């Protein structure tokens, strides 16, 4: 066993850009390679959007903040948003004409259960080791990890024990792959509502934010504290609806009042990042950060 050279590691540890300077700024340049990054959000915040965008940006050359690599997208929630992928690909190739078919370098694999995910790990590894493709694969997205674990297990002590053992097995394997092939691994996770704020363990504070709020409700990431131990960094996306322009021409109040959704990205914890956040919008071209007032 020999120690690794940190100076060499400093030069070779890459980040995969989100394709937007404002978002990149708040996450220190993008998703770090050799580690697991989790994106937590309720549905409709843009987890999948962000992941799809990441898969495109991974193809960018190193000089543009990408990984010069293809990506593997493991989806567990159906259906896979092919139409949106195509839309993003078109937008991507119009801004980077040197990539005419970005979708060619995004590999998609469906997975239906946690055990299946663990079982296909050897297959994934041989896929990663296969260097025949023009671009090596250096990004794995699992969207979402929660869907796998929230269905198959009962709320009994033995099942929960089995579940947490599987958490550690899968994350251990993913970390091994991440290290061996210098991958960036991104996992998405859902949230659960926090019913009673004083309710012991699930109200437990993890990370920079005192409480996570989305759509005006207090939420906490699914899968509990055991899973929180398994990831290296955690990002949280939130959205809140605001009523704008109330009163000008709106007759029936509530229903017709113009609403605007504001979305935020927060760093919950990460070994290399300070507490930070930024606002973003989702448009046809993808996820774009906005300078907040």
């Amino acid at each position, binding site marked *: 066993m020999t120690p690794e050279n940190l100076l060499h590691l400093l030069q070779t540890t890459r980040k995969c850009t989100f394709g937007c300077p404002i978002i990149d700024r708040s996450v220190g340049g993008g998703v*770090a390679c050799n580690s697991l990054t989790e994106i937590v959000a309720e549905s409709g915040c843009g987890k999948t959007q962000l992941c799809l965008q990441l898969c495109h940006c991974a193809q960018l050359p190193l000089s543009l903040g990408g990984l010069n690599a293809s990506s593997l997208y493991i989806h567990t929630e159906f259906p896979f948003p092919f139409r949106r992928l195509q839309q993003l690909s078109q937008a991507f190739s119009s801004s980077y004409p040197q990539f005419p078919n970005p979708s060619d370098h995004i590999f998609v694999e469906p997975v239906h259960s946690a055990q299946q995910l663990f079982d296909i790990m050897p297959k994934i590894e041989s896929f990663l080791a296969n260097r025949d493709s023009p671009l090596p694969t250096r990004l794995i997205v699992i969207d979402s990890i929660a869907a796998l674990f929230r269905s198959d297990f009962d709320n009994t002590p033995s099942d929960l024990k089995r579940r947490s053992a599987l958490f550690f097995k899968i994350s251990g394997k993913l970390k091994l792959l991440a290290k061996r092939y210098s991958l960036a691994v991104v996992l998405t996770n859902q949230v659960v509502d926090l019913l009673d704020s004083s309710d012991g363990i699930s109200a437990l504070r993890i990370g920079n934010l005192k409480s996570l709020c989305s759509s005006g409700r207090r939420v906490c990431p699914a899968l509990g504290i055991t899973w929180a131990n398994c990831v290296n960094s955690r990002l949280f996306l939130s959205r809140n609806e605001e009523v704008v322009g109330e009163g000008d021409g709106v007759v029936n109040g509530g229903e017709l009042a113009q609403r605007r959704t504001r979305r935020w990205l927060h760093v919950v914890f990460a070994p290399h990042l300070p507490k930070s956040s930024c606002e973003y919008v989702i448009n046809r071209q993808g996820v774009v950060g906005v300078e907040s007032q």
Partner: protein
Amino acid sequence: MEVGRLPISATLRGKLISAGYTTLSSLASVSPSDLARELEISNNEAFEILKFASHGSRLDRPDGSGAIVNGAETAWDMLHKEQLLPRITTSCADLDNLLGGGINSSEVTEIGGVPGIGKTQLGYGFLLIQLAVNVQIPGAFGGLDGKAVYIDTEGSFMVERAVQIAEACIEDMTDYSVLVKKNATPHQVQIQPKDILENIFYFRVCSYTEQIALVNYLDKFITEHKDVKVIIVDSVTFHFRQNFDDLALRTRLLSEMALKLMKLAKKFNSAVVLLNQVTTKFTEGSFQLTLALGDSWSHSCTNRIILYWNGDERYAYLEKSPSLQSASAPYSVTCRGIRNSTSSNKRTKMI
């Protein structure tokens, strides 16, 4: 060579030396039958050698200071030795007070807390501050004399963050040395974070077998690379929470590893810092937070510190220590590393 002085035949002496027994103390804990088997000599010969050796070692100690077992020390000597050992500062004054000046060299300290509380940051702190101090001080004596081992099991070690904290440490110490001696020599060599990084032996382990193998190998490694002053395992837990259906086996492996780490700490006078995760424990119908790896593991460490949130502030609680009382202290994680909590700064200012 001490065995050279033993009144035994030259062949036996040769056999002893080629088997690696060069000092009398190395013979102190060998049984005659083991020695006979190892040197391929008769039991009687082995017995004779050991008799001479024990006689010889008694002669070595003419004052006969009452050491019953070879290598025994009096408590008074140990106290002196311990007082001489340096402590490793956390660079947060409140935490240092809590720990009686910092992390103790030659002891095993465990630090646990929820994700995102700053375990890894504390790990970086011990590593880099210690190294920065080493790099700065022996400059006049030529060469660096302290090194560190960082065992990363989770992949949370970010070199860019290490560089950030190292830079801050260097800045702080340059400021400090300017303050202390007003006529600071202008030609003082500017140390770079690079110099510090070169003194970190970073190991990334991807399974528990690798982790155990590495801990076993560390003895040899540190003997070869002298002056490892800090050993950090981030985290000791991760690989032991997967693939263990046999919990008794896990307990045995863990306690064996803990013993080895303790031995390393004592032998090389280096501080061993183990980071641990938290888990929930189901007792009497309610869930409680505890450090992972169970109750038997909690005996394995000399000191134990638990990190927790109190409102919007991070606190450290000294749960277990052989010499200090339990207490807690606030700290904060800044871009420069671990520092005093901002609110406690305000408090001191107001007073």
